[in-house]
Structure formats: C-alpha cells, structure tokens
C-alpha cells in the first residue's frame, strides 16, 4: 500500500468502525478504514451476534418442532449434519460481510487490511498485509474488545471462547459454561438443543446479572431441563486436559469431566494495543479510552467509539456512537445523548430490558411504579403455546413517565424497541396505553401493562382500587 492521506481514518471495521467510516464518507470526507482481518464486520458479524443468531434460530426451530408433539404433530428425531449447519452459518456471515465490502466500495471508502498502530497524533502505521502509513486529520478508534481469558486453563482445543464455540467443531455431550452471562448462555442453548447436557459455573450469585431477577427466573425455570448443575457463587479452581475430556474442579462442588468447556467471563477492551500513547490518547488502566459526549478523546481530533470507549459493549451502542463521531469529525454539533441502550439475551425465551431496572431503582431510591402483564393473559402467547413470559413497565411514580422496562418471552428482543422509543420520547403510561396495539400479538402486552398501571386494563381480573 502506498502511504495514504485522508480526512478520517477509522481503526477497526466492526459495527462501530464501518458505520463511522460510511457516515464520514457520506458527509464528504475522504475515509480510510483499517481492519486487521480480511472481512469487514468485526466480532459482531464474523464471530459474534450474527453467526450465533444463525445457530440460535436453528435451535429454536428444532425445539419448537419437538414441542409440537403436544399438539399432536410428531417429527422423527432430527438428524444433525454439523458440517451443513456450519456451512449455513458461514453463508449467513458471508452474505453480510460481502454486502459491507460492496457498500464500502460504493462509498469510496479505502479499506486497508493490516494492524493499525498510532505513530503520532496524525499518523497511523499499518503493519501486515497492506503495510504503510495513513496520515489523517481525524481518527476514530473502533478497535473493540476481545474475550477475557482465564490464565489457569490449559491450552486445549476442547476449551473454547465464544469464537471457538461458534466453529461447531463437534457435538458435545457434556458442556461446562464458565461465566453465566448472556454470551455463555446463548451458546449453551445451541449446544444443548444439539444434544449437550449443561453445567454452568458463575462467581456471582445469579445468572445474567444486570437484568432484573424476575425476568431471569422465568428463563431459568423454562430451561432447568437443559442443566445438570447451576453452580452460583462458585469458583473454578483447576482444569486439566485428560484423554476423556477436560477435568474441572470447583470450590465446594464435585469435579467433573467435560468434553467441551466454554469460557465466557467477559470481554476486555483493546485500548492498550493500538499505540494510543504515540498519539497522546489517554487509555485508562482497564484499556478503555475515555471520551466526551462527542466521543472525542483527550486529543480533540481523535475519537473513540464502541467497546473500547466503555460499557455496555454492545454493537447498537457502537453504531450510534459511530455516527456521532463521524458527524463531529465533519464539524457537526452531534452529541451522544441517547438516554437508554437496550440489552437483549437471545436465549429461549429471550430476555430484553431497557433503561432503569427495578434493582437500580431500589438502589438509587428512585420512586417508581411497576406494572407487570403476564403473558398467561395474552391470547397470542397462549396460542403460541409460549405463555411463560411477562412484560414489565417501570414508571416514574410522580410523572408516570416510562423510565424502563423488561420483557421475557419469545421475541422479547424485538418487542423492547417500543419501550426504548417510549423512554426517548418521554412517553407516559397513558401515551403507551392509548396507543393502539394490534390484536392478537404479544406486543399488545406492552399496551396492556401500561393500562394496568393506569388501572384501566380489562384483560386481567378486576384490580383493587388504588
């Protein structure tokens, strides 16, 4: 690669990086996108959100087919061809990354493959395939994060992180998930449906921390059959590779041999790997790069977005930050002032939540009112034979404005957007209740929960007068 001069260089082509680069190009800036891997899309498209959903969808359909037995429809035992399943997943990824490459071309974004390291406040040195130097007026750091490792685990192909688990190297009969967060439990769902028995070990006293416990309890009850052991407040003390499998010891629990161990103990930002000091960019001790509301680092013409700019490490947060950074680099007065960032666990049932949680409200002493509409009162959920979920809205006790909410049930991740919109718009319970939701849908449960809060819901037994 010849040395390049540009208005904006974007380091990292994940959802944040490519969005920043495309937005910058759309605003008329000459843009260079530096990515170490040959495809665009980063962790999310290549080894994260998208391939895991391809597998989760497959698993959900398998489970649904199995459940049809209760409706008098029986299929035979599924025949699983892992190679074909893997090929399907790769096709999904290929379609999306190919689309990105095409869009980059249409926008005349120069994609440079290599590892970018800052060489100065206006220079990025690229090593690897396209060696060279990129001189820039502005830079947007979107270098993401990587799976955290547990140092005491041996090197063994049977010990994997989420990337390794997505490779579907083989079926497992006995899977241990270390770390009971969303990523681990999503992958656990896939392997379980494909035939594995699950153990999960978690240091803290609950799974999927961050979500309200009542949401998680529904998921946990529905999925109890997948698990042999749910070890909370437990510590993994040792793991050794044996012929029979990985023998793992726990504190206060019996040791067990697994044929696959999935390590999902969080992600570590890549802030310390990009030569930030050469550009004078401050990186905190954890590897995050602090920014202001325009996503500017301490060096005003260098921006940081996505995982590397702080929690929550979510693609949709990164994309919004990306647009802010690109617009600010183009001289616009854009700021990141979204009030809420939704979270979704794509387990079965799904758990989704946004804004204030009950737990947080309790801790902060916020005066709230909560309305919970059980899906057992939703015609559609009953018809779907999936009425275990509920929809919970959390309102400000005085103004009745929506502060947050949580949904557990099939498709919860697709329902949560309405709550996010309501929070951003400052909608109150009446606004939501008076918005006509189509019948019969599970989305109705949101309108009904709002009516419940206002005491005007007629799909539940009469409420006691408030």
């Amino acid at each position, binding site marked *: 690669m010849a040395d390049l001069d540009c208005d904006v260089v974007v380091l990292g082509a994940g959802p944040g990086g490519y969005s920043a680069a495309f937005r910058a190009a759309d605003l008329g800036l000459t843009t260079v996108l530096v990515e170490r891997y040959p495809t665009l899309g980063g962790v999310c498209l290549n080894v994260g959100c998208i391939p895991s959903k391809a597998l989760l969808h497959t698993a959900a359909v398998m489970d649904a087919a199995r459940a049809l037995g209760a409706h008098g429809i029986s299929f035979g035992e599924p025949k699983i061809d892992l190679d074909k399943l893997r090929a399907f997943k790769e096709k999904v990824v290929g379609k999306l990354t190919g689309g990105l490459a095409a869009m980059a071309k249409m926008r005349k974004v120069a994609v440079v493959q290599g590892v970018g390291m800052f060489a100065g406040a206006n220079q990025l040195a690229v090593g690897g395939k396209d060696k060279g130097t990129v001189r820039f007026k502005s830079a947007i750091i979107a270098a993401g994060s990587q799976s955290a490792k547990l140092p005491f685990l041996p090197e063994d192909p049977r010990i994997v992180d989420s990337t390794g688990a997505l490779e579907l190297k083989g079926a497992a009969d006995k899977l241990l998930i270390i*770390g009971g967060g969303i990523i681990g439990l999503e992958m656990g769902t896939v392997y379980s449906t494909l035939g594995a028995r699950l153990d999960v070990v*978690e*240091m*803290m006293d609950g799974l999927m921390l*961050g979500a309200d416990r009542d949401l998680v309890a529904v998921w946990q009850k529905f999925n109890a059959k997948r698990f042999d052991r749910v070890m909370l407040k437990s510590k993994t003390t040792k793991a050794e590779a044996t012929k029979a499998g990985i023998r793992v010891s726990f504190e206060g629990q019996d040791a067990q041999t697994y044929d696959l161990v999935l390590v999902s103990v969080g992600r570590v930002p890549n802030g310390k790997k990009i030569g930030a000091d050469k550009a004078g960019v401050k990186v905190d001790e954890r590897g995050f790069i602090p920014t202001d509301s325009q996503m500017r680092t301490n060096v005003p013409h260098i921006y940081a977005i996505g995982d590397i700019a702080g929690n929550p490490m979510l693609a949709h947060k990164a994309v919004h930050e990306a647009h802010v950074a690109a617009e600010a680099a183009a001289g616009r007065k854009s700021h990141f002032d979204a009030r809420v960032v939704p979270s979704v666990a794509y387990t079965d049932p799904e758990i989704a939540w946004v804004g204030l949680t009950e737990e947080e409200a309790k801790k902060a002493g916020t005066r709230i009112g909560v309305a919970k509409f059980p899906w057992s009162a939703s015609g559609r959920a009953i018809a779907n034979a999936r009425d275990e979920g509920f929809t919970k809205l959390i309102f400000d006790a005085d103004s009745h404005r929506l502060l947050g909410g949580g949904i557990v049930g099939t498709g919860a991740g697709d329902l949560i957007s309405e709550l996010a919109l309501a929070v951003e718009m400052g909608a109150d319970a009446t606004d939501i209740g008076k918005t006509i939701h189509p019948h019969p849908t599970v989305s109705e449960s949101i309108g009904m929960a709002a009516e419940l809060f206002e005491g005007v819901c007629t799909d539940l037994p009469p409420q006691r007068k408030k």
Partner: protein
Amino acid sequence: MKQVNVPDIGDFKDVEVIEVLVKAGDTIAAEQSLITVESDKATMEIPAPGAGVVREVRIKVGDKVSQGTPILVLDEADAGATAKEAPAPAPAPEKAKAAPASESAKPAPAPAAESAGPMTVNVPDIGDFKDVAVIEVLVKPGDSVAPEQSLITVESDKATMEIPSPAAGTVRELKLKVGDKVSQGSAILVMDATGAAPVLPAQAKPAAEPAAASEVSAPPRPPVPKEPLEALHAKPHASPSVRKFARELGVDLTRVTGSGPKGRIAHTDVQAFVKSALSAVPAAAAAAKGGALPFNLPAWPEVDFAKFGPVEARPLTRLQRLSGPNLHRNWVSIPHVTQFDEADITDLEAFRKANTAETEKQGFKLTMLAFLVKACVTALRQHPNLNASLDRGGESLILKKYYNIGVAVDTPDGLVVPVVRDADRKGVFDVARELGEISKLARDKKLKPGDMQGGTFSISSLGGIGGSAFTPIINAPEVAILGVSRSVLRPVWNGKEFAPRLMLPLSLSYDHRIIDGAAAARFTTYLASVLADIRRSLL
C-alpha cells in the same frame, strides 16, 4: 527442595506482583495461591504446584514477572502430608480476574512479605496555600517510588509545584485524583514503605466486594455512559430530534419550558427560547449595571474560520489561561497612561562592558537589566508614589518601604513575573546573578508561587528583541510598570555638534488615578538621568 516458577500465564509478560501471599516458613497446600499478579487487564493468582514448606521467597511486591520467573523455593511435603490450613487470603473473584472491572476486585491487602508496612503520605507544608488543585498524578498503584520522586503536581493560581515522596516504597493506593483540592495534611496516597519505618498505619482496606464486580459476560447494565440513569426522570421532556436541534443551537433544555402536552418541549419552544434569550441580553446587561455605563456591546463575531481555509485549534497553555483574565482585568479597570522617554546609556554601557569579564568569571552575565533594576530603585526612592498600591477601598495609598522589582520573563508557555526582593539592599552583581537564576527557574517551570509575590514595581524589557516603544499593562496591585525597548546609537545634539549616543527607549505605564502626568514625566526624566550617570544612584 524445589524452585517454584511462574507458570504459563497466557499472553502476559512483565506483569506486576501486587501481592505476596506466603512467606518463608509457611506451610502451604497444593493449589494454594502464592502471589497475585496484575496485568493491564486482569489480576490473577498463581497457585502452588504442590504442598510443602516455603523455604525462601524470591519475589516481592512490585516485581515484574513473566513465565519462568522464580517465585519461591519450596521444601516439598511427602505426598501424604496434609498442609496446614491455608491463611485464606481473600481470593480475587474469578470473574473479576478477567473482567475489565477489576479495580473493585483487587484482593484485600495481605501482608506483603518484605515491606516495612503501609504508610500514608500527606501533603507537606506547601507554604501559604490552601485548596490548591491537583493537576497531575505522577504515580499509580503498584509503582515503586524513590525518596524525593515527585508524586503529584499541584497548582495554585500562581505556580505549580511537585510534591515529592518522603520515602522509598511501593504505591498501594491513591487517595486523590486530578482535580481534587488539597491543603497541607491532605492524604496523597498509601504506600508500602521499604526500609523507612512506617509513619502512620493505613486504615484497613475492606475486602473486595464481589457484588461490585459485576462482570461483563452478563451484559453490563445499560446506563448511558455520560448521563447516569438515576437522573432519567428528571430529564427534560424532549424527543431525540428536539434534543439534536437544541444541541445545534447550544440550548440547555433544562431551561426551556415546553408548550406541548405534559410540558413536552417542541422545536418551536427551542426556537422561542433562543429568540427571547437573544433579545434579553442587551436589556439584562443594561439593567445589571444599574446607573453605571452599560457595556452594551454587540455579540462577538461568530466566524467559521474553517470556511476560508484550513485551521487548527490549539488550546491555550495553562499559564495563558491563568494570566489572560488577570491581564484583562488590569487593562479594563486601571486607567493607563504611558509616558515615553529616552535615556542616554552610552557611558553606562561602556561601564557594563568593562565589567562583564569579571562577572563571567563568576559565572553570570552582567546585563543592562540589572542596572535598570538598581536605577529604578533609585528613582522609586525619589518618587515613592510609584512604589505603592491603592488600598482596597480606594481611600488611601499604601506606600511601601521595600523595593521588590518584578521582571517579566518570556517563557515558551507564556509570561511570568518573578520578583527580585529587596533590590535596594543588593549590589548590581547580586541583582545580575539573581536575574540569571530566576530566568532559568522560570523557563524550567520551577518557580514557586512565593517567587512571584510581593512585587512593588515591574520592568518588562523587550530590549533583546527590538522595537522602539510599547504600552505595557500594569501588574496590579502595583501602580506602574517600566517598559524598555531596544537601545539605538543615534546622533544627539550636545550643543556644539551631533555626537553618537546610545539611547535607551523607556515606556512607563502608570495608574492615572494615583499618578498624574507631571509626576510620571518627572520620574522618567529622573530615571533617565540616573541611567545617563549611574553615579547619581549613590547620591
């Protein structure tokens, strides 16, 4: 006997030992944690490969280790022997080991084998300063520091100073951060002193709270980073598009009243707010001044410079940001008049040159500025009103019986004015030597606040650079400042003929509230006569 080394700890090198959990003589069990190391990402404990008795610890807190670094020497126990109960150091939560949220998960401090104990380092006597801001923290937990090594930099309104470590040791915990205000006695940090006896025992640090270390594998809670959720219900009732519009106009939405249902702020409300704010400004300015003259000025021109060509925004230096408002205040609030004059320094320059060899031997330069300081002192003695300040009520003049001459020094960061104290009691050589020293301190940013206080009169010399005259700004609460430009050799009529004379331009800015024009002219005339014949300063 067996040497225990650091095992394969993954992709880590030179990680720092933050805790040593065992000491010589301890009986340890297999898998018992020996040390805790911390990389930039995580802390981890290194377990014992087998049971035994520790013979010798080869590592201490602060050491950097990699795979293969010896940790300790172990007398291995028989296979059957049971180790005595572990001393149970609070183990780092497993999650936190890898999670970025590791600071809350640092293990409780366990007795470090070789440290002399924790001590709290406080801010020492820093002179007459209170509540000075910390502008830099130069060490972090885990750092080894030497005695006299700078720990933090604090800044008063006049100067910055670095606060040195009183002893050698390892920083355990910082007690302050950039932006904090400190005074004498404020705690800076806790360190494990090596060698030196502990001064004060640090307070016991609570053990890591596992609950606080909510890991990232569970999706972090979704608060928006810059704006805490708790305040969500207090946020203005405005949709994202209205918020974007307000950002573009720089409107603070908390000050806008919404006209929509339930007080919702609409685009039109933001527009109305801006209109009323613009029309209110001149009226408010006039009202605020009461009977005084209103500064009813048009708004500062807003120009998008980048429209006309490439620009670069360079932040003002700290010094500029501090001195700017002071200069502005002085310039606006003191009625300045500047008196220009010239002094014939032909003889003085010859005298100075004749003596430079002598001072250079002594290691300093004999500058014209040194003579100027002395000459000003002589002139000030004759004109005490210029060595004075107005009292705060503006009722009386405080005449000063001491002569501290401030000298403006140009540094890369901006202007500073260190003071030559008691210049009346110092010889020209002493003054010259001192000027050399303070200029160097100024350029090295080593001036202490005291070095810039107590001036009674200032000199700003641009003689080394050029120019024929200028109008210096008075360094309040002083009442006059002498500007000196470059001397020039000029033909001067001596009554019979034009003779070449070396003339030094003087520009005296004075506070016209105290000094009238005649007094100023008398001062510069007298000063010029002293410079023309320095012997006058003896009279």
